[in-house]
């Protein structure tokens, strides 16, 4: 039996494709297999031995942090509640999980085969257990053999000797310095690059020095534009000899989490690629800028679809850079600057109308780059400079000028450090753009790409964070068999509005998406996934999309998850994040409870309230308390933060309140519940239930009452009957101060007013009470419709003697 996965087409790797993909280590399948390898058998036994299963697996780290492509290595997936691990899910093709072994609750060992032609760089992985999905973690494929550091190696005398073009994996503990020596010939390129913070483990800010053994400094790097906190050096050796390479934390800090992959060799390590982008599908001639070791070119085949950041690995003399440079892939052509273009008269002229991409380099201090382009009157254009987003050192300032040289638009930091602006040409003519660095700096790696495109509709989807500074929790769909799970999805519409329709491709067999259309006036709503009782356990990576319409054209938005892997000072700021554009969906083993809403048979009226009943169906033996709350509140509706179905209990009433201006509409709502199951938190949802928001049956107004302490009075509420109701409705006067009472009354659909007998205790303090209201409960279909009407009524308690006449008159008038 071969424990491998098919990663190339994730959408087919589920259920029906079982014979192709062996993602699930299902004991039943193992038993059915005709040929069972000893290892597989061991694993099966191990799985049976690990009879305890746990939900919400936690994946804290992957060790080692990466491997060499074309090799097979053992990789540890470390965390908690992993004892029923079945699968390693990889978002990208190229990694093959040959087998899983040594599965405990804390670690899963996997034999990972890196394809010889697998892409270099970052891979995104999760662990799936029979009962849940783990967080997303990263793993790296590199071009070089990997070896681990050996302590002590703090100085030259005990430095580790390594072969050129090796990746060293290690940890910089507190105040640690790791030292390595290599032999290099004169003129040979000596490159060293750290992947530290990019490993997504901790705020590890590495510093790298390359020295001769006599202490002469060759290079010293702390932060680099390309790798942010990850430094690299690339220099030509001044003479034959041994060179010392040291890595430490920049402030002599460090921790057991400060992992690194240090690539050392003769590989090319350019700082930037030019042009910083091209048209999809094209073959692009890229010039790599490397200050120390010179400029060289590569031809690159661009992907067939646009990409915000596309990693390109420089190749020279048969060696590849271990980490990518970044370019932007668009659907339109490139324009390259033609030098000199330092002023308006010498601006590079493009014959293309937008959309177009202007590419250049601010190569010298104080330099400006000018371009001239043609634009049509009234066609709104968006100007977007890609520089820092592609890790260029340039801090661009963009100006758009009309044909007379007047600035008509400018921006510095509209998109982070990069510039972005919109401009609608007032006439059809030539315009200019001028680009420079904010600080007036310039260097050969100050590369930029300016895209000028007609403004277009855009749509994107994401699952909002469910807890502060946590971009991982419930960012996937994990549905137990015969149960439901709901997630909130938010949509960002740019340059258009309107209704959205959700779609998800190739859901696994037995899994259903229950989703309404997203109304034009809302930008988030719940999606409920329901798994059939016989749905096969497994997972799939899917495209979640939404479609809107703008100018009769479909606007499609896709789900994307941004994962902040490293957070730190200040205030858990993001230091390193990665992203995936597939939604991970898994069907897991049966859950010990199930939730449902008792669908209300009456509407929730504006300014009214409702007690929504949530029922838990518990499996035998499961009596843990279940916390429930609304996944989402429709516009104008609020709900209590959380309610608890007590231990052993089966239901709870959950309070909903409607604002006076709540939109009247029949919505679908769902309640999410969670309980501790087998040590982890298991989240399940109810079915989407109909919740109708309607106008109130009755409204009213309280007439102001003046009354003395120790007296009784009549308080009149004028009623407006909006919709008829059956029978009698109980009405209660609310908002009364202490020591004031008024017995409840009943009204019918004919009543135009109701009068309360108000009694004020003799010890009641004088004062004006302006928050009187009436609670009205109308019964329909046996269920209450709670109204709050006549808000803002006034009761004035006045001194006994003063204004007695006024009180008397007022009382008389009321009578």
């Amino acid at each position, binding site marked *: 039996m071969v424990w491998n996965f098919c990663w190339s087409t994730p959408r087919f790797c589920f259920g029906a494709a079982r014979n192709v993909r062996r993602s699930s280590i299902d004991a039943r399948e193992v038993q059915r297999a005709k040929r069972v390898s000893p290892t597989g058998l061991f694993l099966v036994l191990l799985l049976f031995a690990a009879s305890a299963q746990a939900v919400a697996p936690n994946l804290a780290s992957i060790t080692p942090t990466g491997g060499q492509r074309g090799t097979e290595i053992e990789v540890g997936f470390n965390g908690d509640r992993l004892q029923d691990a079945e699968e390693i899910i990889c978002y990208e093709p190229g990694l093959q999980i040959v087998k899983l072994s040594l599965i405990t609750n804390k670690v899963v060992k996997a034999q990972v085969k890196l394809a010889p032609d697998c892409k270099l760089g970052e891979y995104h992985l999760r662990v799936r257990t029979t009962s849940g999905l783990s967080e997303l973690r990263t793993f790296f494929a590199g071009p070089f053999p990997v070896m681990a550091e050996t302590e002590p190696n703090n100085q030259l005398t005990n430095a580790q000797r390594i072969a050129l073009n090796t990746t060293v994996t290690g940890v910089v503990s507190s105040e640690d310095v790791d030292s390595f020596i290599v032999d290099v010939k004169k003129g040979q390129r000596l490159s060293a690059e750290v992947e530290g913070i990019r490993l997504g483990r901790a705020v590890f800010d590495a510093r790298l020095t390359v020295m001769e053994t006599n202490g002469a400094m060759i290079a010293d790097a702390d*932060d680099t534009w390309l790798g*942010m906190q990850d430094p690299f050096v690339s220099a030509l050796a001044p003479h034959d000899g041994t060179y010392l390479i040291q890595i430490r934390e920049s402030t002599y*800090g460090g921790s057991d989490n400060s992992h690194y992959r240090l690539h050392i060799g003769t590989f090319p390590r350019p700082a930037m690629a030019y042009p910083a982008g091209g048209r999809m599908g094209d073959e692009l001639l890229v010039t790599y800028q490397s200050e120390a070791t010179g400029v060289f070119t590569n031809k690159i085949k661009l992907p067939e679809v646009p990409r915000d950041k596309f990693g390109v690995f420089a190749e020279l003399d048969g060696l590849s850079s271990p980490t990518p440079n970044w370019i932007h892939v668009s659907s339109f052509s490139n324009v390259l600057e033609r030098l000199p273009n330092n002023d308006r008269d010498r601006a590079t002229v493009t014959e293309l109308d937008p959309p177009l991409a202007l590419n250049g380099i601010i190569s010298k201090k104080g330099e400006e780059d000018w371009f001239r382009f043609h634009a049509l009157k009234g066609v709104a254009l968006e100007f977007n400079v890609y520089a820092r987003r592609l890790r260029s050192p340039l801090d661009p300032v963009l100006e758009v000028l009309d044909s007379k040289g007047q600035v008509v638009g400018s921006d510095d930091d509209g998109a982070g450090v990069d510039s972005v602006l919109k401009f609608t040409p007032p006439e059809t003519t030539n315009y200019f753009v001028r680009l420079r660095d904010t600080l007036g700096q310039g260097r050969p790696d100050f590369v930029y790409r300016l895209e000028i495109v007609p403004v277009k509709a855009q749509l994107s989807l994401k699952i909002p964070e469910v807890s502060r500074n946590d971009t991982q929790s419930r960012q996937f769909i994990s549905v137990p068999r015969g149960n439901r799970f709901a997630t909130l999805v938010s949509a960002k519409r740019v340059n258009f509005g309107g209704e959205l329709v959700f779609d998800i491709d190739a859901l696994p067999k037995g899994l259903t998406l229950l989703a309404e259309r997203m109304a034009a006036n809302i930008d988030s709503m719940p999606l409920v996934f329901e798994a059939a009782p016989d749905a096969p356990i497994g997972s799939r990576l899917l495209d979640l999309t939404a479609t809107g319409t703008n100018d009769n054209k479909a606007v499609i938005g896709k789900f994307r998850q941004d994962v902040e892997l490293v957070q730190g000072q200040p205030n858990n700021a*993001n230091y390193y994040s990665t992203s995936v554009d597939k939604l991970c969906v898994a069907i897991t083993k049966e859950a010990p409870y199930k939730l449902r809403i008792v669908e209300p048979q009456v509407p929730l009226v504006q300014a009214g309230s409702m007690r929504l009943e949530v029922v838990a169906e518990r499996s035998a033996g499961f009596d843990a308390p279940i916390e429930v709350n609304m996944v989402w509140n429709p516009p104008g509706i609020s709900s209590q933060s959380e309610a608890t179905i007590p231990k052993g209990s089966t239901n709870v009433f959950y309070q909903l309140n409607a604002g006076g201006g709540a939109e009247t509409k029949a919505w679908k709502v769902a309640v999410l519940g969670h309980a501790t199951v087998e040590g982890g938190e298991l989240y399940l949802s109810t079915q989407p239930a109909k919740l109708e928001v309607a106008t109130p049956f009755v409204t009213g107004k309280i007439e102001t009452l003046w009354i003395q302490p120790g007296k009784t009075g009549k308080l009149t509420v004028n009623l407006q009957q909006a919709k008829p109701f059956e029978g009698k409705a109980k009405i209660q006067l609310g908002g009364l101060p202490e020591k004031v009472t008024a017995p409840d009354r009943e009204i019918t659909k004919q009543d135009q007013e109701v009068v309360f007998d108000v009694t004020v205790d003799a010890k009641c303090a004088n004062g004006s009470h302006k928050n009187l209201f009436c609670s009205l409960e109308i019964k329909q279909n046996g269920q209450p419709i709670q109204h709050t009407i006549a808000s803002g009524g006034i009761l004035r308690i006045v001194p006994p003697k003063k204004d007695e006449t006024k009180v008397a008159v007022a009382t008389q008038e009321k009578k």
Partner: protein
Amino acid sequence: MAGKSSNVQKPRSSERKYHCARAMGLRVELGSFSGAWILVLTAFFLLTSCSPKETKRTLSDFKCFPPEIHLAGAAGRQTVVVQATYSDGITRDITYDARCRLTDPRFAHFDGTNVAARANGRTDLIVSFEGRTLTVPVTVTNATTVPNVSFKLDVMPVFMKAGCNQGSCHGASKGKDGFRLSLFGFDPDGDYYRLTRDQIGRRVNLAIPEESLIVQKGLGAVQHTGGVRFGTNSELHKTLVAWLSAGATNDPPTIPKVTGIEIFPKAAVLEGSNVLQHFTIRGNYSDGSQRDLTRLAVFLSNNDATARVAGDGLVTAGQRGEAFIQARFGEFNVGAQVIVIPKNLVYRWPDVPSLNYIDDAVYAKLKKLRLTPSPVCDDTTFLRRTYIDVAGKLPSVDETKKFLQDEAPDKRGRLVDDLLARKEFADLWVMKFAELLQIRSRDNVVYPKAALLYFEWLRDQMATNVPLDHIVRDLLTGSGSNLKSPAANYYQIEPDPLKMAENTAQIFMGMRVQCAQCHNHPFDRWTMNDYYSFAAFFAQVGRKPGDDPRETVVFDRTSGEVKHLVTGAAMTPKFLGGEVPEIKNESRRAVLARWLTSPDNPYFARNLANMIWTHFIGRGIIEPVDDVRISNPASNPELLDAMATRLVSYKYDFKKLIRDICSSRTYQLSTRANETNAQDERNFSKAGIRRLRAEVLLDCVSQVTDTPNKFPGLPRGARAVQIADGNTANYFLTTFGRATRTTVCSCEVKIDPNLSQALHLLNGVTIQKKIEEGGVVKSMIKGKQTPGQIIENLYLRCFSRPPTKEETTRLEVFLKGCTEPEPVLDDVFWSLLNAKEFVFNH
């Protein structure tokens, strides 16, 4: 010993330790070292110790002040002062002794001290004394014009002269007794409003001007907390009444402004107490006119015991010493130096050699003061002093022996050159500048990485001998990421433009201009206009977040102004004490940096020179170094100017200036006072006794005990002076007063001894633990050294000198018959480390 931990320290006899110390003549009782060294300085001047025989003096010069007289208007007048200078440097006020006459009395009148206008024209005042004559031209214009009383030119000075607008009176921020004036008159328009419009009818009475409350209060005619400020016949009273009689009007905008005031004479050397010296003040106005302000200016003395000054500028000599006479008028302050020496003091300059220009300037001042410099210190003292001052460490035993055996005459100079070339020299100055630049991490503002990079940048600058003016220019123009261009941290550490301006003035020009943020500086020339105009250079410093969450990108915006606190006007950048520069398409900071570091800048090089001098001498020529102001003059301006000029000519290579200082005889003087200079603390006639600053002391303790330090973020063995982040916690350093780096003030570094320090040295863990950890004595015993050799080694380690015969003899008592000398020798070591001779640089 109290407080010792028995499990880490060997039991020892405190009594023996005490006796060891006593045997060596060392004082170890608590707190003793604070004052013991100063005891020798408590002797008084022996003024009559010299031969009573008088030396004959001759008149060398005499001058009449002001050198020319311009009288404008019918009331134009000028006080005249005549001063004679004698061959021995003594000056005399001979205003009443000299014969003065006008060549043409039709135009002016001379009454003995004043020249008053009569008619338009020109005449000369001929002054004769002891056969010499000089001519003072007198010009009279507008002699028939009686100008209106001006509120700003005439009335505002009344409030200053009468003390009304002092901070303790109506100049307080909330005024006094319901009436407020701007402090020292920084806001005349506001004062006019409060006098005439606030509570209308209360303060001025235009119908009966003499009955105005402002007049009555000043006369004390009605209840006045401030008492009587002037009399009915006083000029102040007359001015007020005249202004009120004329309708109490404000001035038109065209009214001339005071552009500056002058004091005459600039200096005086008075012999004997109760000798008098007049001073006169002349004001210059924007219309070119001049005015005698002697009666309106406020006179102050910083040393009444030596020179007491009356309200009319008459100084009366007191006891021997030096005083600074300050005159204030409006926003302007000027000063003059007065030296008083005893009458009939016979003094003979010892004719010591001058080794360079520093000695020349110091000697000139000493001669004026009749002081004799102390003798030159011995080699051991020089060696230790220079090591500590230049390298922040002690010489090793071998280095000491080698130096003492060297008999070459130039060995001191070679030692200085050797030390200046060492890495430790740069470390010391990096630390000093790191204190000024406040290199210190602060939560969520300055991250440890930024602090470390900033420090490393500074260290690299120093290590590569980048001239100081370049470093300062790079700091002031620092732009970009504070993590990639660490000089930009200058603007990360202090983001407020006003504070930036204050810090820049204080660090690089030694000026504290903070006062002028709220009112004109009371003791200096700086006005609120000066303050906000200077701050305007920093108004356009922009900041934005960088890629790294800990990062800030500093850049120059094209907009942003600093507004005047009172007027709200956006201020045009103006150099402090300089002109308004023309700034076109250029960073304001770059313009400022260029001006600040220009050789023509009167403050920058002087400040640096003073700062460097202070490090080596222990006292600034201007003291404290960052309090340059008119009322705190340099004790030896010629010396300061000479060093500043040299520093500029050295292209700000401060090593060369340090070489000059250390090569001077003045630096090499002994701390021992002679009968003339026992009380002198200002004129560098002897070397100062200085406690080692905290970092150097800890490094020296670690050095002599062979115990490397370990500070967070630094490799083991790093020295305390190498601590990059001022936020690094260390009890020893804090106890010994290291700079917290929270302000730019020179007062951050505290070298005053206190009880905590004494207790820590005696009972704390540092000394005892390091002696045990280092095992210096143990290893020497292991190396078969005799107790005598070990004692000599310890003396050389700690004091850079061998023990004296007496010390050796006394210590031998403790070792006699001792079979286990190690505890005794450890006690000797302990005693040496607790000795004042170790803790102080002398």
